[in-house]
C-alpha cells in the first residue's frame, strides 16, 4: 500500500452536501495526487500538490478543491457534491514528479 491511507473508503452523500476525502501518507513524499476513475475514462487527475500549501489543478478540477497543510495529509473537498462526482477517488504519491507513483486503495463516493 506504499504507506497511503484513504478515508473514508466508502461514502454515500446527498446532492449539494460538502464532502471531504482524506489522504494520509507515511513516506514523506513531496508529491501527492488526487485522481478519479470512471468507466470509459480511466484515471483522470483532479489536483496535485508539490509541497505544503503548494497545489495545482489537473485536467478535471472543476467542483473540487484541495488543501495540504502538512506533508503527510492531502485533502480533497467537494464543496457541493453533484451526481456527476459519483466515482472512485484515488490518492497517489511520488518522491519526484513524473516518477513511479504509488496509489492508495481508493474511496468509493456515491452522490444521490
Amino acid at each position, binding site marked *: 500500500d506504499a504507506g497511503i491511507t484513504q478515508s473514508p473508503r466508502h461514502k454515500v452523500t446527498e446532492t449539494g452536501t460538502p464532502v471531504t476525502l482524506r489522504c494520509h501518507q507515511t513516506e514523506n513524499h513531496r508529491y501527492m495526487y488526487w485522481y478519479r476513475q470512471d*468507466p*470509459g475514462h480511466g484515471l483522470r487527475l483532479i489536483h496535485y500538490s508539490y509541497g505544503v500549501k503548494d497545489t495545482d489543478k489537473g485536467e478535471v478540477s472543476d467542483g473540487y478543491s484541495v488543501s495540504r497543510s502538512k506533508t503527510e495529509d492531502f485533502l480533497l473537498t467537494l464543496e457541493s457534491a453533484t451526481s456527476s462526482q459519483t466515482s472512485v477517488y*484515488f490518492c497517489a504519491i511520488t518522491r519526484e514528479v*513524473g516518477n*513511479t507513483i504509488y496509489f492508495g486503495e*481508493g474511496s468509493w463516493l456515491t452522490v444521490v
Partner: protein
Amino acid sequence: GESVGLHLPTLSVQEGDNSIINCAYSNSASDYFIWYKQESGKGPQFIIDIRSNMDKRQGQRVTVLLNKTVKHLSLQIAATQPGDSAVYFCAERDSNYQLIWGAGTKLIIKP
C-alpha cells in the same frame, strides 16, 4: 469494490499461456513508461517501468517492450496465472513530467 472498467478492451488467455497486452502512446517526446495492474476493488499497483533509451526490460515473469518507431509499448506476462486477472494500465511521462494514462485492458484468465 466495483468494476473499474465496464467497456474496456478485454484479453482472454488460457491459464499457463503467455499474455501480451499492448499500448499505443501518443507523444514521441515521452521518455518514461510504466505499467500498472489494478485488481477489482483495489488501487493500481506498479508492475514495471522502462525508460526511452531502452527497448526491453524484464522483471519477475513480466517483460516490457518499447518500440519508439511506432510508439508502441507491450507488457508480456509469462505463464499466466489466475492471480494475473486484472485491468492493466500503461502510462507515459510527457515533456512536462506529467503522467498520461491509457484507458486500460482487462485480462481474463481461462482455467
